[in-house]
């Protein structure tokens, strides 16, 4: 059986657009956090987020009409374009029916939804705008990727919230293993939205200035946005076109806590880790790095670390959270995690958890790669993704 490999990565993020810029930013522990501009944050006590400021969709998209797609769809399609470029993939050369797109998201097209709601507030519900609503359906995100890249295989948007990219990459992996596709664009996208900012604030989960995962004084997430897409191929397909893979997808698992609509469950998460290891045919001691879900809330980080200890025992590998740099990019977050794992594997380094000041003794001894990236050989990496509704998904990557 042919392995499934990653040949290209396409990050559109608050710390950089494109593989090279993102890599540089990860290595230097860059923060993508700034004061919110995509909506007026002045009524909120907390006003920071990981917005993508420099994104001009026309710079990346030649086929779709950027005026007729929402921001999340544009992120997904542009990120897929970047991933195809990074993969050196001649998009025209692959039979369209053998190319699929799978995109994970939390909110779908929230900016469109907000525009729709503004209209309701101003003109009443009977005037709800049918034209704008064309851009609203969640599946538009994967459809945009297919439309932009000329793909006619499956188009699937997976709405499993903050773990959705891992689901998408896992599903893409399955499509390739089962012979249903030769190339899959997989990952996730989400756009900033006021209601998510409000919701997390009201839950007490929103930090004020910075996101500080694993820190003793961590106080929550910062919301964020972006598009994180990768190119998956069978090793055979990559070899046939003379392309050296960046990394290998060894396997993945998805499960459900089935306990609480928002609070994570350590037993459910530990079970997901074990399933992912079994599916990837690795043992815990082989994992060299965990790219954590690491949202920076007291609850998530404690629960995730408890699960790590349960599975890895007393000597887990280094665990860092790139949400410290990006904020929480919602459905794109585990896609950025996979991209970070790939770059870490390729570059021989461990991405840092920035904004770290004090050990949280309650977490026990843990190497969170505080503040500075450092060299490290990564043969196997575990990329964590957890979400509301107990939707857990973990992807295991290996060096090619």
């Amino acid at each position: 059986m042919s392995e499934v490999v990653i040949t290209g990565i396409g990050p559109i993020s608050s710390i950089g657009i494109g593989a090279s810029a993102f890599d540089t930013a990860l290595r230097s522990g860059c923060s993508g956090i700034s004061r919110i501009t995509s909506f007026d944050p002045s009524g909120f006590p907390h006003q920071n987020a990981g917005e993508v400021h420099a994104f001009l969709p026309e710079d990346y998209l030649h086929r779709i009409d950027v005026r007729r797609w929402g921001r999340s769809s544009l992120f997904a399609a542009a990120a897929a374009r970047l991933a195809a470029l990074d993969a050196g993939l001649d998009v025209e050369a692959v039979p369209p029916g053998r190319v699929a797109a799978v995109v994970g998201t939390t909110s779908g097209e929230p900016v469109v939804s907000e525009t729709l709601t503004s209209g309701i507030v101003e003109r009443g519900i009977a005037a709800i705008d049918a034209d704008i609503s064309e851009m609203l359906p969640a599946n538009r995100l994967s459809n945009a990727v297919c439309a932009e890249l000329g793909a006619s295989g499956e188009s699937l948007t997976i709405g499993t919230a903050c773990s959705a990219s891992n689901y998408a990459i896992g599903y893409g992996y399955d499509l390739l293993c089962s012979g249903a596709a030769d190339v899959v664009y997989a990952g996730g996208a989400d756009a900033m939205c006021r209601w998510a900012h409000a919701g997390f604030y009201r839950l007490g989960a929103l930090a004020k200035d910075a996101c500080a995962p694993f820190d003793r004084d961590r106080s929550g997430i910062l919301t964020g946005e972006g598009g994180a897409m990768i190119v998956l191929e069978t090793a055979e397909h990559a070899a046939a076109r003379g392309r050296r893979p960046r990394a290998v997808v060894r396997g993945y698992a998805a499960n459900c806590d089935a306990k609480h609509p928002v609070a994570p469950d350590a037993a459910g998460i530990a079970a997901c880790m074990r399933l992912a290891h079994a599916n990837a045919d690795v043992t815990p001691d082989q994992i060299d790095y965990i790219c954590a879900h690491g949202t920076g809330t007291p609850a998530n980080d404690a629960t995730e670390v408890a699960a790590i200890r349960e599975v890895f025992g007393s000597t887990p590998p280094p665990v860092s959270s790139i949400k410290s740099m990006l904020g929480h990019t919602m459905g794109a977050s585990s896609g950025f995690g996979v991209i970070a794992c790939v770059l870490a594997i390729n570059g021989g380094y461990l991405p840092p958890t920035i904004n770290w000041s004090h050990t949280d003794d309650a977490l026990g001894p843990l190497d969170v790669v505080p503040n500075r990236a450092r060299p490290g050989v990564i043969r196997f990496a575990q990329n964590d993704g957890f979400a509301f509704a107990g939707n857990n998904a973990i992807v295991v990557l290996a060096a090619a």
Partner: protein
Amino acid sequence: MSSGMSSGMSGGMTGRPDRDRALEIAGWSAVSPAGIGSAALAACLREHAAGGRVTLGEHPAVLWPDDPLPADINHVDTGFDVARYVPRKGTRAYDRLTALSVAVGMDSLRAARLEVTDETGPRVGAVLGTTVGSLKSTSDFTRDTMTQDKPYLVNPILFPNTILNGPAGQIAIRFGLRGVNATVGGGPLAFINAVRYASITILRSYADAMVVGAVEELTPQRAWLAHNSKEPPAAETGGAFVLQRPGLAEGPVAVVTDVSTGFEPEYPARGPWAALNRCVRAVVGEQDTAITEVFTSEVDPDTAEYDAAVHALGYQPARRTVSGIFGSCGAATAAMSLAVALAEGGPEPVLITAHDRSGAVGAMLVSIMAGPC
């Protein structure tokens, strides 16, 4: 679980191509204006067959007293109470979509005689198809952040309802389904996408059984959106089906022989019909029993989806549309197509097709064992 099922499979696959892609439907249920369940659906179909619109259920004004509603609005089961299906504790935060999804999910598990235990729970999952989740929940929550004295004066308990995976998560919580839990988009294609997702998940051994469904609530938002889009009146419909690997169910009611999805990149300049043609040919394959009915997602007088299916088949089965029975079913369209086919009974295979409004298409072939409800 009621039938023998191994619970220890690690799920790792050796990657052999799946030649046999059939899944069994062990049991199912539906949401219709007459209520939850196959009997309620059958009552709606009898009323429709007798001539005209389904009027069972009641005018929904009593549910939405503060909002104007279009004059031409469908009836719903205004007496629906989720506490008939699950303990009331914990349901206060449910929006209507979540409540209907939990109820129909529960009823499908009952119909499938699927007992979920601590041992088997990790191998039972769920996947729901949707368009935008609950437009009302998202819009009302967003409206609060725009109109309240402070933009953060939203109700945090309602936050999970604004996110697409809320209903699937509650189904898992209520019934202990700790296996793969997913939510997929697709609009009219969403249920076919969900079946496709379940197919991959089960056939690659990540799960042994999945509750696969799609539901749409009838709210003022959906009602006006359908009205302003010049679509048939929005309907409150849905279906949930317990899909399993072949051989696990005692006496399955149907077999989903195959499911295929695709996309037309030139849409709308080129209709999605070449892509649909490929999907139909993929699922029909070597099928030698004539298909007598095609359920499409289209709305009269549009027959392009049916024409594409006919072109692929080379003959003309009867054309059925759930829009003609219930109205705009949204994400529940293909679920209702399957529910209607099951309610009417076998034995000939039925073809179910759908497309969304930006070029995605899909088809599934189902053989029905059971007789009419």
